[in-house]
């Protein structure tokens, strides 16, 4: 915002005039305000304010789309999941644990080309040994004991990390594979962390 000293009469009048009433109008006004008041910084470009169809729906419905809409979204997201071409889904749980610990990546203070962290412990309890865990997502302690290590279980875990929205349309969890935040090897290592009987998750 330039010319901080000049009361932005025109803008303000316009603002008042377009001050919205309905939920959809308010949402549009909020997004327009953000597009005006935000600026690209580092790797975080302004394109990040462009919501895809899924986010538009979640924003418009307060994250509670009607069941048929939710199902359609989930199906659309599921179709875009790319499972590993080599048919294997479990990597090294030790690497997975390191990844789960790291909250780095994708912010404007992160450098381009650096590998992103999984951010997992920010929201989930995972290994019993880590006392510093978040609770926005459910506890995953013993996940592998419950799910086993069948190919189907591996594919499921891989898919959930790849794109949680294929399972729950407006899930709070990022679509790590879908947006390219985590690569195939990283997701495999996280699947191993969750499912491997040797992982501290299942010990």
């Amino acid at each position, binding site marked *: *915002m*330039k010319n*901080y*000293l000049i*009361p*932005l*009469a025109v803008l*303000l009048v316009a*603002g*008042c005039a377009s001050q919205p009433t309905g939920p959809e109008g*308010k*949402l549009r*006004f*909020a997004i327009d*305000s*953000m597009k*005006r*008041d*935000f*600026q*690209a*910084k580092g790797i*975080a*470009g*302004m394109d*990040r*304010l462009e*919501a895809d169809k899924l*986010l538009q729906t979640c*924003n418009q419905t*307060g994250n509670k789309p009607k069941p048929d809409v939710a199902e359609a979204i*989930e*199906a659309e997201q*599921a*179709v875009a999941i790319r499972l590993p071409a080599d048919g294997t889904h479990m990597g090294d749980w030790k690497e997975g644990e390191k990844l789960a610990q790291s909250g780095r990546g*994708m*912010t*404007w*203070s992160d450098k381009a080309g650096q590998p992103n962290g999984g951010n997992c412990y*920010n929201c989930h*309890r995972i290994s019993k040994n880590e*006392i*510093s865990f*978040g*609770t*926005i*997502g*459910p*506890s*995953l302690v013993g996940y592998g004991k419950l799910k086993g290590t069948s190919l189907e279980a591996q594919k*499921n875990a891989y898919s*959930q990390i790849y794109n949680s*929205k*294929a*399972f*729950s349309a407006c*899930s*709070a*969890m990022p679509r790590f594979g879908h*947006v390219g935040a985590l690569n195939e090897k990283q997701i495999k290592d996280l699947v191993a962390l969750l499912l491997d009987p040797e992982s501290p998750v299942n010990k």
Partner: protein
Amino acid sequence: MKKRIMAAALVSLCGVLGLSFATPSLAQKKDETIAGIEKYREMLGDDNPAELYEMRGEAAWKKPAGPNNVSLEKCDLGLGAGIVKGAYAQTPRYFEDAGRVMDIESRIAWCMMTVQGISEADMRKRPFGSADKPSLMEDLVTYVVTASKGFKIAPPNTHPQEKAAFELGQSIFHVRAGPYDFSCATCHGQDGKRIRLQELPNLTKAADNQRAYIGWPAYRVSTSQVHSMQWRINDCFRQQRLPEPKYMSESVNALITYMAVMATGAEYKGPALKR
């Protein structure tokens, strides 16, 4: 279709799964950790390096500066020219002379420009300092907010523009965007959640706003510096993986207005000492 079956068969990662694993021993363990952290905070007590900022800020406030070579003592923070005591508690508010809703930082900046004659470019040069070199604004803000210790948070929220700012802030709070699909509400929209061990206030509710707002601005031990509310909002968007909200922009001031109005009635405690 196979994937649809898979989706139906699997309990969502964000579904009931967690509850089924919350055995009593785990719950107990969690409580011990939180109790330990509370003990830690209690031991840190009242000794807060924010006081060093306050001392510097007071000196800077009273020292003639800028092209006009006058101090900020003539600055009107909303309660009349020269009144600092209690002024922060009644912001953000609409300022007739500026024709906009301003938070405390925007207003101090306004005074630097109009009273002291400092250019906008200079004022914007370095809003957020570092541990080694705090910004002038961080010192000034710490001084001004500390002078509202013990006052009830009471932004007017009566002028149409103040009400519009509140509404805009509330709307922005819920907008999901960016590569991780985060909104402010993703982390601050539910009761009793945490990131790692840090408890997250549910900022859609008055009670949690009241608890959270009274400790900001705050000295953070993880960065060894005082952070202002403008910085706090800025860093939330960084963690949301969004582009940067411009310093003192309408969107940021709207979010601060939203939180301040939600916190109305709480007694301001002054800069807190935080993780």
